[in-house]
């Protein structure tokens, strides 16, 4: 009997109305490098058990880094006893199982020596492409997940992830970022990520200060993925109900250009964010969030779904529903092709540090970093620096002029949710800059 099942016995014995138990064993190798040298090599393993209980209008959870079932059971008994001293009223039932799930992913081999060789290949490729130095990280992890619920759902899943993120610098400090994301570290094209980072660093040498103002811009996949992931997060009914979403009261309404298709799809085989069930045990499925620019609905767990009078979309989060694996519909061409269609504007290849003035209004700013190119008459004529995008999500998503065909998976320090995104040509992006 698995640890999760042992703990479930305790919940059933206690007569808990709604309970979820999951145990996860994670193994991760993380290599960090800087100045073309290894900074640190990490090898981490750990087991956690999480128990969530919902009854009589109250919710409680525990997460323990513990493999001793008797200790977990004692903690569960204490939690349930404490919860039952308070509260009253009803609770929304968990999705009723049993369910059938998609087959588990295959377990990839995670080998530290092999990963170090791949990281070295990325660094060398960046140098060959013109970089003088590179920094980055290469991580690969496998999580073995076991889940069961008081409503009869039970499943096993293997969640493999690999991510190589590389930033390269040229002699004048200009930089470029390369990224490769996959479920299996052996499917990472390390040399391609290095070439991309080194090439962008070299291309953006000699960047000059340019004025702020409204400009057309091609937002490369790493940038547009940041915006798409924000929209995906804000589609969570939890954040809608909290007033932390620009999508509140917009179901069935235009929220973006008709060109934009945004979905959450954790069912894509062999993908980094793929998972067979959500945190309540519901089988995951593809959910359209924005279709032809129209908001199709919010992402729900059973509780937010009940409050909104709809069915769960299988996006639990036990407290807040969330997207697992976002995809943006593709257009045609790469960022270079979109820029060629643009009379004047900028190409932004990466951005970070997105912060809101007002989540409900979607007012935010984010800082372009790494290569930013100046485009005139469809040609890249130079590089720019020192700019900030200060705009609203509604405006940027509504002003999409064209989407590229250069979709790629993005996940890195700035973008938490794996997001398959193309480049996007956006009209009238508001850029600001420091004036002192």
């Amino acid at each position, binding site marked *: 009997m698995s640890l999760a099942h042992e703990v479930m016995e305790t919940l059933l014995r206690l007569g808990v109305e709604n309970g979820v138990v999951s145990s996860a064993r994670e193994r991760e*190798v993380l290599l960090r*490098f*800087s*100045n073309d*040298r*290894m*900074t*640190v*090599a*990490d*090898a*981490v*393993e*750990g087991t*956690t058990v999480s128990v969530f209980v919902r009854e009589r209008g109250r*919710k*409680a*959870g*525990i*997460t*323990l*880094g*513990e*493999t*001793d079932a008797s200790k977990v059971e004692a*903690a569960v008994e204490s939690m349930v006893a*404490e919860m039952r*001293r*308070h509260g009253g009223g009803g609770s929304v039932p968990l999705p009723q199982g049993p369910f059938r799930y998609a087959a588990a992913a295959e377990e990839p081999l995670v080998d*530290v020596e092999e*990963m*170090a*060789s791949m*990281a070295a290949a990325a660094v*060398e490729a960046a140098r060959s492409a013109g970089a003088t130095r590179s*920094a*980055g*990280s290469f*991580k690969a992890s496998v999580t073995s997940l076991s889940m069961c619920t008081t409503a009869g759902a039970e499943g096993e899943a293997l969640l493999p992830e690999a991510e190589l993120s*590389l930033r390269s*610098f040229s002699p004048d400090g200009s930089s470029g*970022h390369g990224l490769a994301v996959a479920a299996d570290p052996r499917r990472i094209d390390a040399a391609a990520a290095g070439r991309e980072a080194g090439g962008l660093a070299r291309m953006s040498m000699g960047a000059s200060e340019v004025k702020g103002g409204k400009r057309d811009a091609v937002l490369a996949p790493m940038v547009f993925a940041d915006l798409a992931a924000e929209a995906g997060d804000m589609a969570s009914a939890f954040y809608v109900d*909290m*007033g932390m979403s620009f999508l509140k009261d917009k179901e069935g309404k235009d929220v973006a250009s008709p060109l934009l298709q945004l979905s959450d799809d954790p069912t894509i085989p062999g993908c980094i964010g793929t998972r067979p069930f959500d945190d309540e045990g519901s089988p995951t499925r593809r959910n359209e969030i924005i279709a032809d620019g129209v908001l199709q609905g919010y992402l729900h767990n059973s509780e937010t779904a009940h409050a909104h009078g709809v069915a769960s979309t299988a996006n639990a989060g036990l407290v807040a529903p969330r997207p697992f694996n976002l995809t943006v519909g593709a257009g045609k061409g790469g960022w270079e092709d979109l820029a060629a269609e643009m009379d004047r504007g900028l190409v932004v290849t990466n951005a970070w*540090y997105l912060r*809101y*003035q*007002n*989540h409900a*209004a979607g007012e935010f*700013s984010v*800082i372009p*970093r790494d290569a930013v190119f100046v485009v005139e008459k469809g040609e890249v004529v130079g590089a720019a620096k*020192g700019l*900030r995008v*200060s705009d609203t999500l509604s405006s940027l998503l509504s002003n999409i002029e064209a989407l590229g065909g250069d979709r790629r998976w993005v996940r890195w320090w700035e973008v938490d949710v794996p997001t398959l995104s193309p480049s996007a040509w956006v009209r009238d992006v508001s850029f*600001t800059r*420091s*004036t*002192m």
Partner: protein
Amino acid sequence: MEDLLRSAMEHALSLGAEYAEARHQSDVSERTVVKNGAPEVSSVESRSGFSLRVVKRGCMAFAAGNGLDAAGLRGLAAKAVRAADASGALKTELRMDGSPVCDAKDVLAPRVPFADVPLQERTSLLLESHRRAADSAAAAGCRLAGAFMSLGLLRTEKTIINSDGGRLLSSIPRASMNAFLTVFSPERGAVQRHISKGSASGWEGVESWALEESMAEEAATLAKVVNEASPLSAGRKDLVLGPEIIGLVAHESAGHPSEADRLLGREAAQAGETFLSERGAPRRVGRPMLNVVDDPTLPGSFGRYLYDDECVAARRRYLIRGGEFDELLHDRSSAAAMGTLSNGSSRSLRYDVEPIVRMANTFVEPGDHSLEELLEGVKDGIYMRSFMEWNIDDRRYNQRYVGLECHRIADGELAGLLRGPALEISTPALWSSIDAIGRDLEFSAALCGKGEPMQGIPVWTGGPPVRLRGVHMGGSA
């Protein structure tokens, strides 16, 4: 526990490591959440485990795991050494400095242990805080349209030994509260605010915040902003920054640029580097009265610790002294690389992440002006008390702060609220624009994000009000 750690450390040394440190860390976090005036969830998270960090032939490696016995720990040590051996073509030459290391205990006993406060009392405190905030908003003709309040009680215990003779036992409780409020008027729209409080303390820290009154005041202020704030035209103004904002400035524009690991390029692909490493970067950025410090030893502070995770004693560090960038924040490897000694800045969030260079409590040292004296000197300006949006580039050079509670200053008097003025300015220009520093020091709590994996570490940011002359303010959004 120490015997287990010592056995693992010695095993790593026997496998060829020149340096080894072994740590056991336990973090037990209790959280109570109220959403929109109803109990949302109460949770307990307990994470504990072991880590080994080694240096072998100049390469550093880190291994961590939980649920381990003595044999498992020796396996962990072997795994760390094997990872250090794996550097291959990326081999480096890293070493630890010669800093004195401690054999010490740092146990902060709470006056009111968290266990003495039942869940119902914690929940009731948040429910009452919500009620008071909602009443405040309603009294001003607005609605508390969204409210998230979370109370966190954390106890961190560490046992650390290293092969240079360091030994540390520490136990530190931390209390924190985070809120997100949305105040709405059908006629005038909505404003939102994040609020963070934190201290190294038991429940007495929570009591000191007077949350019910504090949330009522916050909602009342937001309602005033909704009802009364008027747009601002862009232009050059004098600006008084309140403690909340100058504290963030101290953190972002003095603290982060002064992290030695950024200067050495270690964080280049994530949090970034620092403009201080660039040729021609100015060292002098402010007038001689400007001092910005980072001090882990402040009693009760959210970022408090007396010894870091490399067993080096903590002390106050002058990041900007007399208007010039001065001391960097170091761990033992960055100090060795730069030919100096660590100043005790190495911290890790959990057992399963490596210690890295971190700030603790970063603030502008007080001057001698009252707030009234700062305002008196302004003919046409802005007093920015709080903010919502901010960011800064990865060299920590270009930053933006968008005000939330902002007052117009006319002839030295507050003269009405302004909506969302934006300060977008370089780090040298910001520090050099300060012509007067207040005397009333206040702190805010925050979690500072850095590292890979991301480590959100508790810090205080602070300062007294300061006055900036002739800065360019962007108009209201």
